[in-house]
């Protein structure tokens, strides 16, 4: 079976795996916010990114994620980055510049691209770490927990959570089935790899239609199975999975908030360490 783009849960028993999913979800969101913080100077910014990168590498080490996995996740972004660089060079016309022939290239343009690039890598890395150390189901529970307040304005949070968890449950089943349909169609002479765009689209349609039909069939079966086992979306249910905040979660939360708060304070005050040193 093919791996999902971002990363799959790896079943290691590490510190990161044991952390509560709710904490990890919060941590990832905060890290993604923190990535966009600006400090007093460019040097400070990049020192901070360096610090985050070191943290990422440490987390990856703990979670048994290989650097290669991160590189593979970044790979599809090269094209976008080059495109972004060209746009930046053409649009940004401020600050100092150097010249290639008569054409000015502004340092600001290069730095803008670099910022985006580093931020994207960091965000990808954080989501990679989250998905590799947290079961999709636990993430769903965490999401449900955070969305719980919405039940007061009549949002059916538990139904949404059930839908997400069923979707997650059926991803491997449907992938396997898509694979089987692909082989079946290939054996009938459908060519998925070569040919013009139109032929390719036609080949894909021959895959998608049976997949849809089968998915609908599955969902009716599933609805029957859930109904006879007494599922009532609007009824009262007890829960098998109950999440507990452990001591490590509280401690981690403390460190996370301290880190986040510290960085925010540094950013707001605009302190530049390098200005003191130099």
């Amino acid at each position: 079976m093919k791996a999902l783009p971002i990363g799959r849960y790896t079943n290691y028993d590490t510190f990161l795996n044991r952390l509560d999913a709710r904490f990890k979800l919060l941590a990832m969101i905060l890290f993604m916010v923190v990535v966009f913080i600006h400090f007093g100077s460019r040097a400070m910014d990049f020192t901070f990114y360096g610090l985050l990168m070191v943290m990422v590498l440490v987390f990856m080490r703990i979670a048994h994620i290989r650097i290669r996995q991160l590189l593979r996740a970044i790979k599809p972004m090269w094209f976008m980055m080059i495109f972004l660089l060209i746009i930046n060079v053409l649009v940004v016309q401020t600050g100092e510049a150097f010249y290639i022939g008569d054409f000015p290239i502004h340092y600001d343009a290069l730095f803008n691209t670099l910022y985006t690039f580093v931020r994207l890598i960091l965000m990808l890395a954080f989501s990679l770490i989250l998905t590799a150390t947290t079961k999709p189901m636990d993430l769903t529970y965490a999401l449900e927990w955070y969305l719980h307040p919405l039940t007061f304005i009549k949002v059916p949070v538990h139904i949404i959570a059930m839908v997400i968890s069923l979707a997650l449950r059926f991803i491997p089943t449907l992938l396997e089935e898509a694979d089987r349909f692909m082989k079946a169609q290939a054996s009938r002479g459908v060519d998925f790899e070569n040919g013009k765009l139109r032929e390719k689209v036609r080949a894909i349609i021959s895959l998608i239609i049976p997949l849809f039909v089968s998915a609908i069939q599955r969902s009716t079966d599933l609805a029957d199975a859930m109904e006879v086992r007494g599922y009532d979306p609007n009824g009262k249910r007890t829960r098998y999975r109950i999440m507990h905040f452990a001591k490590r979660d509280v401690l981690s939360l403390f460190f996370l908030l301290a880190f986040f708060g510290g960085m925010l304070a540094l950013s707001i005050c605009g302190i530049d360490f390098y200005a003191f040193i130099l």
Partner: protein
Amino acid sequence: MKAIDVQHLWFSYHQEEEEKMILQDLSFSCEQGESIAFIGPNGSGKSTLMKLLVALLEADKGKIFLLDKELKEDTVDFLRQHIGIVFQNPDNQFIGATVRDDIAFGLENRCIPHEEMEDIILKYAKEVGMETFLDKEPASLSGGQKQRVAIAGVLSMHPKILLMDEATAMLDPKGRKEIMALTKKMRSENKDMTILTVTHHMEEALLSDRIIVIYQGKVYMEGTPDEVFSHAEELKAIGLDLPFEKKWKEELKKAGFPIENTMTDEEAIEILCH
């Protein structure tokens, strides 16, 4: 007390004339603790009947009594607590992310307190021999294992009536054997559980107390396995075969040996040897 009493049931998916309907005036009843196998060619209405019994479909005419209560809109919720069904497709009835969660699903719906769930899950996982797979995801289980989990999920709700709607049809021979062995075990351990099996495999039908042959929406034949399988010709006429252990005796009988297919293997071999 009759576990199931079905009276003059008519059903069709689309509005159709009487002679084209899926079920046509079908009646049968069964005692508590009895096990019945339904056999019949494809499209004879066996699976439809099962769906009617758990109220996933509604009959056009006729009545269904479960545990002496009529199955109606206001009794559905109550009666569903006493009836469980295992469907054909192992994947499409696996709801939880892991074996544990799947067994828990029914318990959650029943509002069983969280503290009691763990013990119940373990108990029924052991019952079906899946206790070492509790944290496995469905993708890493075989069809037979998934069906065993489905059975555990149903058993954990203590049904008085258990329906197996072609539960072995999509399994390989090994998986089918597992489920047949489990069915046998369930029958011996839960004497007052009524078990209805729909099957295409005659070997499976042999395990039950009584067989009901359904053909074109009607009861075509009814009786103990020995009685039903002694009518080899009538069964053949509607496209059904004998189970292997009946078949070889039937063939020998045709060849002129004084053998009946209701004999045990030993009796038949005894006659052959003399």
